[in-house]
Every structure is written in structure tokens, then in C-alpha cells.
């Protein structure tokens, strides 16, 4: 074997005290969990029909064998909770957590603080897919699933796959710049087609525009189940790559000389992040800012290691989006605002405050 013992490495049974290693601060993790719980509570309680905390608790407990015995909830209220509010809040959790963690992952693999989950054209592809579905096949279902999210999912996946293939042929994936430029080119191409379709199908402009700005559709649990496998897979893959995402902050030669394949890590993380992004974009539209604001706020406030950024992005991204969605559907009720308007309106000033209060911290 080539390995050599450089230093005395006698195995002692005492714990190793080595300062400066990144650890998930328990206070922040608990704070994130509480924020998520609170935002879910607000999301479930807010709505045109007043439903009290007690009713919500009873509705949650009622289906549980043993605990739910003897609990009776008004069927109308139970229906509102189980068919509309619970699935919408859960969808918000999935979409927000995924967009935030995918943004963090993209920023890691591309070493670009401005990277967001749409960097390689996922938004443009999803927008084109959804626009085509809205304009050309409104109300169509495939295997009982609305065609719009399916078309958006396929569009997002196709755009990123196209960008990856193009980047690979141009620069052989030696640099991230080639991949980013390929993403820009593919996005521009898809956007041009989307604009053309939108202009020629003026009757559906409003619906297309509303979709593009993002809105959590309320198709009940079907949408949750539709995105759940992709979201779980995506987040899990990014989660187990936290150490390698930290390693990617070194120079490319240094990473390679540590026996780490940069291309392999980049490919796996990009595929995972894209899969999650495509899934949540399919049901939520292209919700902006979450993927940039949340990871950066965590970097500035807590720490830059991906061992910290990834788990906290999931918690705070989910909490932020549930709150934003609650605001989107209550501010001008009974109408709904596009969620992207809320995420930008709330997120941008918050982010500016964070940036100003942490002046001098590395971005």
C-alpha cells in the first residue's frame, strides 16, 4: 500500500478535541424547526373560513387509530382542512425546502453565489412546457394527472439535459463557465419559443403569466404525491454530498489531487438538484428568489459550510415558502397573488437587512 504513517497515531480512547469543525448549531436547527412548525400553523389557520386551533388539532388526531376515537369534527371544516389547507401547506414545505436546498447545491457545484435552481434553464423549460400545455391542451389529463405539471416537469428536465449536453460538447465539463453559458443559451432559446407561443395564443396569456409567477396549485394530495418521491430523492442526495460540496470550494487541481472526481460530484448533485427543481416547478411554477435568498441568509448568519447550509436551507426554505404562500392567498382574498411576488417582496428587503447587518462577511 502507498499510505504511510506520518505521525504518531496511537489509538487513544479519549474523545478527540479539534476546534473549528463545522457543526450544525442546535439552536439554529431548533429555531428552524420551530419556524417551520409555526409557519405551518399559520398556513393551516389562515383562510376565508375561520377554523380554530382546536379544530385543526382534532382534525389531525381524528384519523389516528386509538387517539382519534371519540373525536368529532365538523365534516365541512374537516374537508377544508384535509382537501385544501393541509395539502397546500405540505406542498409549500416541499417546494420551499427543495428550492432552497437546490439553490445551495447549485451555488456549491458552480462556485457561483448568483446560481439559483434555474441556472441551467429549468425555469425556461418548465415555462415552455406549461405554456404549451395551457395554450394547446387546456384541461387535459394524462393518467388522471393534469397535463400542465407534467409538461412543466418534462420541459425543465429537457432544458437542463440540453444545457448539460451542450456544455459537455463545448468544454468537456472542464469548467463550470461553459455549462453556465450553455444554460443561458438554452434558456434564451426556450424563452423565445415560449414568448412566441404566448403571443400567438393571447386568450391564455393571463393563465400563462400567473403560472410563470408561481402559485401553489390546490389539487389536493395528488400534487403532493406527485412530487414527493423526486423531492425526497433530491434532498437526500444533496444531503449526503454536504462534505463533498465543502470540498468543491477548493481549487479544481486540489480537489482532484484529493482523489475526488469533480465531474462525478458535479453531475450527481446537478442531476439531483434538477430533479427536485423540475418536480416542484411543475406544481408551483417558477417561484423566484427562494433558492438564492435562503442559502445566502444562512451563510451570512450561521456559517458557510454545507454541513450547516444544507439542513438549515431545507427548514428555513420550507418555512419561508409556507408563509409566502399564506400571504399570497390571504392579502387580496378571495383573489390570490402570484407567490413569486410575495417571495420577492418579503425576501428582498429581508436579504438586504441581512447583508447590511453582516457587512464584511464573505459571500
Amino acid at each position, binding site marked *: *500500500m*502507498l*499510505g*504511510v*504513517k*506520518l*505521525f*504518531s*497515531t496511537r*489509538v*487513544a480512547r479519549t*474523545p*478527540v*478535541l*479539534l*476546534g*473549528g*469543525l*463545522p457543526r450544525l448549531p442546535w439552536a439554529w436547527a431548533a429555531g428552524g424547526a420551530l419556524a417551520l412548525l409555526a409557519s405551518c400553523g399559520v398556513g393551516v389557520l389562515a383562510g376565508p373560513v375561520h377554523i380554530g386551533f382546536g379544530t385543526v388539532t382534532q382534525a389531525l388526531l381524528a384519523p389516528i387509530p386509538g387517539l382519534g376515537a371519540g373525536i368529532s369534527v365538523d365534516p365541512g371544516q374537516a374537508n377544508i382542512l384535509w382537501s385544501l389547507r393541509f395539502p397546500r401547506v405540505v406542498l409549500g414545505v416541499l417546494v420551499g425546502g427543495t428550492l432552497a436546498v437546490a439553490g445551495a447545491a447549485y451555488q456549491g457545484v458552480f462556485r457561483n453565489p448568483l446560481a439559483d435552481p434555474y441556472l441551467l434553464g429549468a425555469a425556461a423549460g418548465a415555462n415552455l412546457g406549461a405554456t404549451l400545455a395551457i395554450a394547446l391542451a387546456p384541461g387535459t389529463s394524462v393518467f388522471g394527472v393534469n397535463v400542465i405539471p407534467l409538461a412543466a416537469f418534462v420541459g425543465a428536465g429537457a432544458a437542463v439535459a440540453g444545457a448539460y449536453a451542450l456544455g459537455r460538447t463545448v468544454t468537456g465539463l472542464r469548467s463550470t463557465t461553459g455549462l453556465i453559458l450553455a444554460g443561458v443559451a438554452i434558456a434564451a432559446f426556450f424563452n423565445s419559443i415560449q414568448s412566441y407561443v404566448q403571443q400567438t395564443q393571447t386568450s391564455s396569456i393571463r393563465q400563462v403569466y400567473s403560472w410563470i409567477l408561481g402559485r401553489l396549485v390546490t389539487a389536493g394530495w395528488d400534487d403532493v404525491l406527485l412530487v414527493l418521491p423526486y423531492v425526497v430523492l433530491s434532498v437526500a442526495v444533496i444531503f*449526503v*454530498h454536504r*462534505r*463533498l460540496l*465543502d*470540498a468543491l*470550494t*477548493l*481549487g479544481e*487541481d*486540489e480537489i*482532484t*489531487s*484529493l*482523489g*475526488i*472526481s469533480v465531474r462525478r460530484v458535479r453531475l450527481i448533485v446537478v442531476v439531483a438538484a434538477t430533479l427536485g427543481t423540475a418536480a416542484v416547478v411543475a406544481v408551483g411554477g417558477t417561484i423566484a428568489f427562494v433558492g438564492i435568498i435562503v442559502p445566502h441568509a444562512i*451563510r451570512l448568519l450561521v*456559517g*458557510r*459550510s454545507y454541513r450547516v447550509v444544507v439542513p438549515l436551507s431545507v427548514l428555513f426554505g420550507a418555512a419561508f415558502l409556507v408563509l409566502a404562500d399564506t400571504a399570497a392567498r390571504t392579502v387580496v382574498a378571495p383573489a390570490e397573488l402570484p407567490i413569486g411576488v410575495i417571495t420577492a417582496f418579503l425576501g428582498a428587503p429581508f436579504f438586504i437587512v441581512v447583508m447590511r447587518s453582516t457587512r464584511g*462577511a*464573505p459571500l
Partner: protein
Amino acid sequence: MSDVSLSAVTVAYEGRPVVRDLDLAVASGEWLSLIGPNGAGKTTVLRAITRLVPFDGDIHIGGRAVARLSSRDLARGVAMLVQEPQMPAGMTVSQYALLGRSPHLGYLGKESSRDRRIVRDVLRRLGLDELASRALDRLSGGERQRAAIARALAQQAPVLLIDEPTTSLDVGRQQSVLELIDQLRREQELTVIAAMHELTLAGQYADRLALLVGGRLVAIGSASEVLTEPAIAEHYRAQVKVIEMNGSGTAVVPVRR
């Protein structure tokens, strides 16, 4: 065994050869410094050994062909200290050094207490234990260089490749860094191959010097054999005075033309 041998190694960038037909043999525990003017191919030789560039010919480490080693096995055998290590802002010294344990972990592996112990010992050895929690961007130039050495040493590889280890350091720090590397080499029987510009320092610390010009090996031997005024004048186009310092090595002093 950590001897390094290069046999008929050629490296080309876009069809233009930058290292040509190079044969080198570095014994286990030896310090070989690669010297030569800019563009001589010194860094490229180091990059070929770590397989960062494709090459023709054979490179063996401890009798094993580099081309046939897995990336992790290669990283366990060879550590590389690049000329300007990228120091991620906000990363602490200990986290940075711990990345050096990567070759000993699985793809998704996690550092064990043994890995942390090794890094703690390395930091202590390099006088960095007090700075373990400090962010890299808050270190002085000399401390950063030591942090980079710590990361390379945490790899526990028997072969250490160093690219211009003293760039941007003042003369005192140059001396400290090279003395530290030399001391570690002797203690741990490391094989060191260093690309160096500073000829006097190269001659002071290396067992042998290999002079590369235009990608070819033109001279190899002790400092007094390689660092001669005619050779330096010919290959560096420099006018120098070479001074033998009575058992303290060879000094190369530029003389104003």
C-alpha cells in the same frame, strides 16, 4: 517504498509538447528540486505525476503504475501542494486540513475520530493548533502556507509534490517553510519533489537538482554540479555569480549587467 520513477514521459498541451521524453528516478526519502526557466515544464511534471494532465510514457510510485491506480489510491500515495492554494473564505484551518483525509474516506464517507486525531496531530506539529478555529481568510501569508502544508500532510501520502512553495513569502518565511518541509521529510521519510524558481534555496534543501529547459532534462545532480555559471547563463540568459559557501551549499547571486 515511495520511490518515484518517470520513464519517457511526454506531456503535450493541444499538440504542443511541454515535457519531452523525460526520464527521472527519485529515491524513497529523497528531495529532488525541479529547476528551470519559465515554461520549462516543472509544474507540468508535477501535474503529470498526480495525473492532472494526460501523459505518454510511464510513471511509477513505489513500483505501481500511476496510470493504473484509482484516484483515491493515487491520492493516498501522492499529496500535492499547489502554487497558490485556494483558501475558501470562512473555512476554518481545521476544516481545511480535514479535507486532506478525503482519500481515506469512501465517496460519501464521514471523517472518524481517527481522522480528526491525525489532523489535530498535524496541526500541532505545524504549530497551528492555536489557529485551528480561525478562518483561512484571517491568516497571514506564512500561516496560510502552513495550513496548506497541513492539508497535504493530513493525506499521509509518502510522496509530497510542491509547486513553488515560497512564492510571495519573505526570505525568513521562505526559510521557515523549507526547513519545516525538510524536517518532516527526514522524520517521516517523505519523498519530496519540488518545482522551485529560487535557485539558492533549491540548492540548499534538495538532495539533487534537475534542470529542465523546454520540457527536456538537461542536467541532474547535486547543487554544485548543476548550478554553474555557464549553465545558468545559457539556460536562464542570466548573469550570475555562483559562490560555494564552504560546506553551507551553493549561492547563486545575480550580477548587474
